[in-house]
């Protein structure tokens, strides 16, 4: 073991980025008795968990977020949340809505191919997402529904994606039926199959902040206010002898006991100096998304909160009528439907004028909501460059390695973008806590051995 350097062991842990992961890590490290400084490049915290309110009374969150009563309690915002009474999903296919998966399996072609697949004796281990879907659902359902959806949100053919893209949350059929029943009985949207870091139960249900998702980060930021430095871009993370030792902020070198980064994993190699072990992450890709928030007259226009649209005639692959689950996010008698469009930066949809995007979505929406054109009021468009990690097979081995460690001592890469993981907010939170505690224990051991 190398001799610890006293001036470094007195240095704070530096957290890079003030989204939910950075803020939760900061709070947990502080609670473990460490000195922490969080640098956020922009003028406000929140990162991707951001909210925009318009003068007409609509609230738009950057993408849809799932928050449970458990996460809201752990972060301290439950008193600012309301219960979500219902949450459901459907697939729009052949001109009508079909429950997933029971409704689909009543269609003979899907049932037939699913049964054929399930009764195969020796199924080979799936090497791509396309294989995995065929094995799991049968060729018909896989090729007509699952593959188009995953391709829309990944921007690559399912045959070139890792089977991990379809990683299911474990759960038994009986358990799922029980939770569905509990949701009916309690009139709460029990969270089913969305979190792997903490157990699901009839008593964990969806809630949502009255003022939008930004509430969560605002609360965390208030708890760690003394440690947050806004408008402070971390220009570089210094690595020496395979260990993170500091950062450069606004031209000034700041020593660090450890660095916790929430930067997208493909950005990290560009800001880390002193090692090239992060180079493989440079080619990791995120799928950009265009979210078109359509304002309409009326309520409950779609059959479910989320409607998947795998057929090629739709520019979007998913529609979310937010007000079915969170009625307070739009004024009375108005609704909000968010159309998710997979894009690449600079492509047709990315570059399209907002009003034209709205028109294109309304045209396509008319198949599902015939009155959409008549009731259309306008739209608010959000473009996100890092919406989803793309699990491309070309870097699958590096991705699996990253899941264990970023490869530099005392450098953590956390959060949805930092871990390059398909995880929702609650998983980000519990995972971050666990990693922060592990880091705290490591630093404590080092201090003890130094003393």
């Amino acid at each position, binding site marked *: 073991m190398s001799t610890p350097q006293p001036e470094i062991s007195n240095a704070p842990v530096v957290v890079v980025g003030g989204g939910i992961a950075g803020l939760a890590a900061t709070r*947990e490290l502080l*609670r*473990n008795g460490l000195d922490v400084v969080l640098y956020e490049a922009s003028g406000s915290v929140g990162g991707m968990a951001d909210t925009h309110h318009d003068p007409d009374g609509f609230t738009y969150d950057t993408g849809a977020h799932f928050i449970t*009563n*458990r996460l*809201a*309690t*752990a972060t*301290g915002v*439950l*008193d600012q949340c309301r219960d979500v009474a219902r949450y459901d999903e459907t697939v729009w296919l052949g001109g009508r809505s079909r429950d997933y998966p029971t409704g689909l399996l009543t269609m003979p072609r899907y049932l037939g191919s699913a049964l054929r697949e399930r009764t195969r004796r020796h199924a080979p281990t799936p090497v791509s997402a396309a294989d995995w879907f065929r094995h799991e659902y049968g060729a018909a359902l896989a090729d007509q529904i699952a593959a188009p959806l995953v391709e829309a949100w990944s921007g690559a053919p399912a045959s070139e994606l890792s089977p991990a893209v379809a990683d299911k949350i474990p759960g038994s059929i009986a358990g799922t039926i029980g939770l569905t029943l509990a949701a009916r*009985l*309690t009139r709460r949207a029990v969270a089913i199959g969305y979190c792997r870091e*903490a*157990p699901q*139960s*009839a*008593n*964990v249900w969806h809630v949502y902040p009255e003022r939008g998702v930004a509430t969560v980060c605002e609360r965390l930021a208030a708890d760690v206010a003394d440690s947050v430095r806004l408008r402070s871009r971390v220009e570089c993370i210094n690595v020496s002898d395979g260990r993170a030792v500091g950062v450069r902020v606004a031209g000034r070198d700041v020593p660090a006991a450890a660095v916790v980064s929430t930067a997208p994993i493909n950005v990290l190699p560009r800001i880390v100096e002193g090692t090239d072990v992060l180079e493989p992450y440079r080619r990791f890709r995120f799928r950009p998304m265009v979210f078109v928030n359509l304002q309409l007259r009326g309520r409950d226009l779609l059959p479910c909160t989320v409607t998947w649209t795998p057929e090629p005639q739709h520019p979007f692959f998913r529609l979310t009528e937010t007000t079915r689950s969170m009625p307070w996010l739009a004024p009375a008698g108005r609704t909000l439907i968010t159309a998710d469009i997979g894009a690449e930066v600079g492509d047709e949809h990315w570059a399209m004028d907002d009003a034209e995007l709205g028109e294109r979505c309304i045209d396509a929406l008319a198949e599902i909501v015939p009155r959409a054109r008549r009731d259309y009021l306008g739209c608010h468009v959000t473009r996100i460059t890092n919406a989803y990690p793309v699990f491309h097979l070309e870097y699958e081995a590096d991705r699996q390695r990253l899941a264990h460690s970023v490869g530099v001592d005392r450098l953590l890469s956390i959060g949805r973008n930092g871990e390059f993981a398909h995880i929702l907010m609650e998983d980000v939170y*519990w995972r971050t806590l666990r990693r922060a*505690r592990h880091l705290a*224990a490591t630093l404590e051991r080092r201090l003890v051995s130094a003393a």
Partner: protein
Amino acid sequence: MESTRCCICGTRDAEPVGVGEDFEYRTSPDSFLTVRCERCGVVYLDPRPVRAELTTIYPDHYHAFTFTEDRFGFVYRVRRRLEARRLLAAAGSLPPDAKILDVGCGDGFHLELLREFGTPGWQLEGVDLDPRAAEAAAARGVLVHRGSIEELDLEADGYDFAILVQTIEHVGDPAAVLGAIRRVLRPGGRLLVVTDNTGSLDFTVAKRRHWGGYHFPRHWYLFDADSLRRLATHTGFIVDELDTMVSPVNWVYSLRNALDDWAAPRPIVDWFSLESPIPLAAFTAFDWLHQRAGRAALLRAVLRRPDEPSS
């Protein structure tokens, strides 16, 4: 609210267990989280109210201040007999002038039992943080020290027997409390601990939200047999006895909390209370079945301070 850590290992390496509210007294609009220490198995509230909030979370009509014969009738009389038997069994053979300390004495219920059913020469003293409890106990004619056992300067090696009945789950630092009791016990002196059991079936069934033993937000640290043994050893006690004890209370409260949470009709919710002999009797019988498997609702430990003089 303040963040907390495991009272044995001092880390925060814990996993979420349950989320709930103050279903019984509604003293707070907040929701609370319990976590379980991955190392020690202790279940604890994190974060928890700060000390300044104690008068809010223990309202004037809190049952420990108002458990009277007038109000609870038959249940009161049954409980008195049962508890007296249990106390005397744990006390073992004490000298006729034994000094006995009840830590977290509430309204003095247990001290009064010892006076009524025990030896007349026993000197009975209590400790309680809450002035309302201390007043109620003083009204029963026992000597009450107001404050926390860690901060009070009670005579070292001075007591023959101490009891900590349904108190350890309420305190901010159980290890410090046991340490302080160990200091005031004479060498060889015994301590009876009774607390809610997280190794029970009612915990397994209701731990995600409605478990009666949570008493959100008043119960801060909760144990099963293993974690209580670990705490006892950690604080320098020898474990003489450790078993479980039948109680219908957590079953009744778990059910009541669930019904209340799901907005069941009020009369049904209210029927599940400590004033209703039928559910109490039914769950006593039910819990008795689990006692055979060591999974009854309460934990009972008799700890002993080792014989060597205190350092």
